[in-house]
Structures are given as C-alpha cells and as structure tokens.
C-alpha cells in the first residue's frame, strides 16, 4: 500500500494510532501514516474527515492519544511550544495572522532579531517588505497567506504543516502560493492539507487520504490523481473522466 521510496532515510514524521476526542465526538479513530523526509506529502479527504484535526493533534493543539515521532523522537507528550521550537512549523487554515499587528510585527514575533530583514523574506515575499508597516488585518487574503508562510520560515524548520493555503484565494494568487510552496519544498518537507487537486498534482509527491477519521489510502500523488475513478471514490470531487487543467 505504501509506495514511498525505500532508498531514502527514515520518515521525518511518523504518526501511529492517533486518536482525538472532542466534546462528544471521536474525530480521529486511529490514524497512522508517515511523512517522507523530503518533498510534499498531501493529506486529502472530504470536508470534516479530520485533516485539520490531524495537524492540530500533531502540534498538541488538540487533545490526542497515540504515538507521534518527529525524526525518531516521541513528541506526543511535548507542549506545542516545544514541538514548534524543535522544528515543526504550522500555517493554519484561515492564516490567523495577528490583524492588529503590522506585517513587520507579525514577523518580529517569531524572529526578534531579523524579522522582515531576513533573507528568506526578501527572496520569497518581496511584496511584504513594501508593506512592512501595514496592519496585517488590512491585507488581502493572499497577502495574509504570505505573512503566515513567511512567519514560519523565519524559524529553522525540519517539517512544515500547512493547512489549505489556497482556500478562498483568487486563481492568480493560487498560482503564486503554489510557486512559493514548490520553492520551499525543495529544502523543507511539507505535510499539506489541500482541496485543490491540480495543485496537489503539481507539487505533491505522496498522498494520505482520510475518511471518517481513518486513513483509507496511502500512495504516490501522481498515481492517485491519474486514476479518476479512485479519486472520485476517495474524494468525491471528480465529475468527469479527466480533470481539466
């Protein structure tokens, strides 16, 4: 079932039998998967199957049981702060930038010394430098996404968890975000939650598909996207034989 290359070193992240119970709901019911140490692993599934919850559980933002190994170290008992400091960056759904703070302040929060002057910002997000004194809350959705991405890249990361970065963005911005993600993925592995299948096809190497709180498929991204029937069965999105692009 798992077609990940065997020639590469061990996974950067291993999730074993992850359970999350919230209020009365049993949202994750024993999720297990690996994230390869390079490239993009896409976490797919219909709405409400537990993709966002999986990311939050890895970070300790949702009450979880099970085993989580980051580069071989068990982290399921660690606090969120420690997990992030140990190198897992998080870009949440809906960006969650600090709207009352300026762009620069949003970045200085993570990196007091360099902030907006960090080379990575200049290289990937030149637009933000021009808007350094603008309040993040007044930025467009795409710009806010760039702030959210820049924010995690300021800290040295071994893995990025990115939740629906293109949600609600206009087509042109989707392309821009995809370009940034592809660039980032060259140096840092990404676990990506995404609904946009063409984007998944373009930048993802592996896929993990969730349904009703369980993993129902693991494999190569290209293989899944090419198989329209399987895509429809797992994700329910494909409406005709072949997706347009």
């Amino acid at each position, binding site marked *: 079932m798992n077609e990940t290359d065997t020639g590469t070193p061990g996974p950067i992240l291993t999730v074993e039998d992850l359970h999350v119970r919230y209020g009365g709901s*049993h949202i994750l019911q024993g999720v297990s998967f690996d994230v390869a140490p390079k490239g993009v692993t896409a976490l797919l599934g219909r709405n409400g199957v537990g993709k966002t919850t999986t990311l939050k559980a890895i970070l300790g933002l949702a009450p979880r049981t099970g085993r989580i190994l980051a580069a071989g170290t068990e982290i399921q008992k660690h606090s969120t702060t420690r997990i992030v400091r140990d190198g897992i960056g998080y870009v949440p759904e809906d960006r969650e930038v600090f709207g009352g703070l300026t762009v620069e302040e949003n970045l200085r929060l993570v990196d007091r010394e360099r902030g907006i002057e960090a080379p990575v910002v200049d290289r990937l997000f030149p637009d933000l430098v021009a808007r350094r004194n603008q309040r993040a809350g007044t930025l467009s959705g795409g710009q806010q996404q760039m702030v959210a991405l820049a924010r995690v890249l300021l800290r040295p990361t071994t893995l990025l968890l990115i939740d629906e970065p293109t949600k609600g963005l206009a087509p042109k911005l989707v392309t821009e975000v995809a370009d940034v993600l592809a660039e980032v993925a060259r140096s840092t592995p990404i676990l990506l939650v995404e609904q946009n299948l063409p984007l998944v096809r373009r930048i993802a190497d592996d896929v993990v598909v969730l349904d009703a709180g369980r993993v129902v498929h693991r494999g190569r991204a290209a293989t899944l996207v090419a198989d329209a029937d399987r895509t429809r069965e797992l994700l*329910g999105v494909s409406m005709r034989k072949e997706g347009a692009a």
Partner: protein
Amino acid sequence: MIEAQAVGWRVGGAQILDDVSVSVGPGELLGIIGPNGAGKSSLVDILSGVRRATTGRIALGDKDVTNKSATRRARMGLARSFQTSALFDGLTAGENVRLAIQAAGERPFTPFRRAEGDDAERIDGLLARVRMPGRADTLASDLSHGDRRKLELAMALASDPSVLLLDEPMAGVSAEDVDGLTEIIGEVRDVGVAVAMVEHHMHVVLGLADRVAVLHHGQLLATGSPDEVTADDRVQQAYLGEAL
C-alpha cells in the same frame, strides 16, 4: 419555499457573496456545491438569518424576511443544521429532541408548567424517523459521529419545517452513515419540504438533488439538473481547481 434574490455579502474589503440568486420549492432538493471558501456556508447563514446580507433580499414562502432574525425565521418554518454539529452534549438524545420540540412550540419557556410527558411520543417518532429508535436515553456525547448528525436532523425536523437548510450534513461520517443520512434526507424532501443542502459527497448530491447550484468565489457559476451541471465546462474547471 425559500428564495435568495441577488444576495451579496461583504466583510471588510472582501466580497464573500456576489449577486447570488437561488430558490428551492416545496418537495425540491437543491444541492449547493463548490470549492472550499466559495461562500456556501455563508449562503446558508444568510438564508437562515444567522448573518445578514449586505445587498439583496430573502423571501420565505411569500414573505420578505430579509431583515428578520434567525429566531423569527425559525418560527416561520425554517430549520437548519450546522457544519460542525452543535448538540447539547450534557443531555440525552431524547432531551435534545424535546428541547427542539419545545423551542418550536407555542410558548417555548412558560414557567412552572411541567414539560415532561406530552412529548414522549413525538420524540420517539422523530428518533425513529432518523433511524435511531430506542436511543432516547443515550447521552448526546456518547453517540457516534453519524448518530450525532442524525440527531441534529431529528432536531431540525422537530419544528415540522417547510424549509430545511443543511450545511454539510455528512461531513466526516462513515460510508454506511452516509447511506442512512441520504435516505432520511430523501424522505424529508418527499413529504414536501424544501431542502437546500451544502455537501461535499458528490455522488450523494448528484444522486439526490433535483437541482444543483455551483458557487465559485462567491458567485453563482451555474444552476441546473445534476446532468446539466456536470456537463458544464466552467464547472469542471472551477470545481477541479484553477488552471495552474
């Protein structure tokens, strides 16, 4: 029936919904689909009165309800479910339904009138209708995810609504529960309720809906029968994502 006429909704600088017109008649099921962030839940919120549209009008039956509160619309025969289930977790399934019956009744909070007794039959009837007979005494927090969604449906049906709005009623439920919920929703439509449903399970929407509305970036991309909509090239493009 419920009808949205040229509804628009702006938040801050963002146009979440733009000139959207849809309507659902009695005994009709409208499936609302579209990529994430397209404005589907916002549309349901505006139809149900949880949010107010910036432009356009909403009609419920033959009355204009554009400026009526959610509570007023509920009393006029509109019921809805939420994307994330919102039950009273500390209460049993039966008590949840009883509260819904009571809320829809004539005097929802008369003091010092015994509330128990009269409703037992209706509670059982509603639970049976959503395939949960005999679960009245189970705590809501102990129900499976699928049963929670069914219980929500039972609560929405407690008011005998003429219009039912469902926001992803099958989000996160298992395959067998999807089938059960599909059957229940079909039955509700068949007794003459106007149903509008946001849903990501495409085979459910295409199999169940009489008409489908496709939202994209807050705009209505297409409406029509499932066959018409699936054949539409713009829908194909939009739904499977932007050209990259």
